[in-house]
C-alpha cells in the first residue's frame, strides 16, 4: 500500500477507536498505525508482525511488537483481552483466514478489518480487456511476486461475515484519498469494516 492511501485508512481507523482503548494490531508492519493511535488516542497497543526488519522499526519507534505469524500467534490471549483487534491489509496474506478472524473476534471485543477490493473496476478492466492478472495502485504486485494468497472482493467479505453471523457495525469504502459512497464493490479500492460477533 502507498503511504498516502495508508494515511486515509489510518485516519478512518483512528476515528473508529475511543480514547485510551487497548488495541492488538495483527500484521502491524512498521508500527506506524499503533504509533498514531498511541499519540492521537492514548491507545495502549500491541503488534504482531512476521517480518523481522519491521520488528526493528516498531521497537525503534517505541511500539510493542511480537515477531511471529498470525496463523499461530493468538492462542495464548484470553477472551476479550483487547478493546479492538486490527487486521489492516493482512488477511489477504493469511493461510487460515477463518481461524484468524474467529480468533480475532475471540480476543477482541471488536475487530477492525481492512481489505483490498480485487473487484475494483480497474482490476476488472485489466482482466477483461487486457486478459492479464491486474496490477493497480492498491494491488501493486505482479502475479509471481505477490504476497497475497487470497483474492476477494468487498462483497465476498460481506458475504463471509453474513454466513458466519458476524455483524458489520460500520463499513467505510475508500479510493485513494477519497471515500466511495456509490457502488463500492465496483469503485472502491479497499474497505474498512468494524465487525463484532
Amino acid at each position, binding site marked *: 500500500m502507498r503511504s498516502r492511501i495508508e494515511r486515509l485508512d489510518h485516519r478512518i481507523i483512528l476515528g473508529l477507536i475511543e480514547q485510551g482503548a487497548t488495541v492488538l494490531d495483527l500484521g502491524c508492519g512498521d508500527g506506524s498505525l499503533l504509533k498514531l493511535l498511541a499519540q492521537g488516542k492514548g491507545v495502549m497497543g500491541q503488534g504482531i508482525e512476521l517480518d*523481522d526488519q519491521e520488528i526493528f522499526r516498531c521497537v525503534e519507534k517505541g511500539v*510493542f511488537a511480537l515477531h511471529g505469524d498470525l496463523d499461530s500467534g493468538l492462542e495464548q*490471549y484470553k477472551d476479550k483481552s483487547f478493546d479492538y483487534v486490527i487486521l489492516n491489509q493482512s488477511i489477504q496474506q493469511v493461510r487460515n483466514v477463518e481461524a484468524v478472524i474467529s480468533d480475532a473476534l475471540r480476543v477482541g471485543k471488536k475487530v477492525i478489518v481492512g481489505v483490498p477490493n480485487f473487484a475494483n473496476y480497474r482490476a476488472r478492466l485489466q482482466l477483461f480487456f487486457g486478459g492479464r492478472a491486474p496490477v493497480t495502485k492498491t494491488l501493486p504486485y505482479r502475479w509471481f511476486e505477490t504476497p497475497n494468497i487470497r483474492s476477494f472482493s468487498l462483497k465476498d467479505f460481506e458475504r463471509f461475515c453474513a454466513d458466519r453471523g458476524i455483524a458489520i457495525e460500520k463499513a467505510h469504502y475508500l479510493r485513494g484519498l477519497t471515500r466511495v459512497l456509490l457502488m463500492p464493490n465496483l469503485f472502491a479500492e479497499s474497505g474498512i469494516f468494524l465487525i463484532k460477533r
Partner: protein
Amino acid sequence: MKEFVFAKDGDGFELGSGKRLRAVTLAYETYGKLNKNRDNAILVEHAFSGDSDAASWWKGMIGKGKALDTDRYFIICSNVLGGCRGSTGPSSIDPDTKRPYGLSFPLITIGDMVRAQKKLIEHLGIDRLLSVIGGSMGGMQVLQWVSLYPDSLVSAIPIASTLKHSPQQIAFDEVARQAIMSDPDWRGGDYYGKKAPERGLALARMIGHITYMSDESMEEKFSRTPKEKDKSSYFSSDFQVEGYLRYKGNSFVKRFDANSYLYITKAMDHFDLSGTKLIPLDKNIDVKFLVIAFRSDWLYPPYQSKEIVKVLQGRSIYASYCEINSTYGHDAFLLEVEEQSRLISGFLNQAASKNKEDAAYEI
C-alpha cells in the same frame, strides 16, 4: 571493582534452602551516574561464566552513545553469588572455619543470586530499576527479578534465555560436571591450596564452547582448516577447531573455579519459572518486556523465548519479541551488537519516557 558486604552480623543471609551464609560479598561495577530522581539505573546480569566487568564482556553494548548509554543510564553489574570473580562462592573463605568452603558451601539457586542483588540495589539507594537485562543465565536472573520483585522494575530484557532448562541443557551441564568430578585433582572439592582439577575443568569448558556455537558459525570460523601440526602424537590437534577448543579450555582454568562451575550449573538446572511461577495468578504486574532470541541458537533455542512470550500474552503484558537472524548460535547475544542495539536502545527510550510520565502523574 567495588565490593558490597552484607549479613556480617546476626543470622546472616538466608538462602531459599533455609541454610544461611555469613558475611556475603558481592563484587560489582558501575558505569555512568545515578540521576537525581534515581530512576535511570539498569542492572546487567552476566551469563554463566561472566563477571562484574560488563563493559569488557559486553563492550559493544555498554558505553557512551551505545545501547546501554553511560551518558544516560546508571549501569550496575555484579558477580553472582556462588561465583569466583570476587563474590562469595565455594572458593571463598568460610568465616567460621577460616578455610575455603569447598563442598561445605550450601547449594544456591538463581533466586538466591537475585535476592543478594536486591540487597546491593537497595544499598545503592535505588527503589526501582529502569531495566534488568541479561543473556543466557543472565536472562534467567532477569526472569527471577520479575518473579520476586516486579514492583521494583519498569522493564525486563531476557535474551537467549528460558523459563527452565530442557533435558538437553541439563544433560550438557551434567557431562561438564562429570568431567570435573572425574578429574583426580578435584578431590571431592577440597583442592584449594593444591593442584586444581584443570583437566576436568578445561574439558567441561570445551564441551560448553561447542554448545555456544552453531554448525554454521563453526563452518564460517574454522571450516576444516588444518592446524600447524604438532608431531608429538597421532592425536594431537589437526584442525583449527580442535586448537580453538583446547585454547578456550586451557585459558578458562586460569580464571574460573571448578566448584563454582558445579554450583552454578546446578542452580541453572533447578531454575524453573514455567507455568504460573513467573507471574502468580493473583498478581498483576506492570513490567514491560523485550524478549530476544537468535535463529541459530540450539542451546537456548527460540522456542524457549517464545514460551516466555506466551506467558506474557496470557497475562496481557505488553512486550516486544524478536528472533534475530544470526548464524552465531548461543554466542550471538555477545556478538550481534548492531541488531540488539537497535532493539534495546529503542525499547529503553520508551521505558524511560514511560517512567517520566509516571513521575509526572505522581506529582
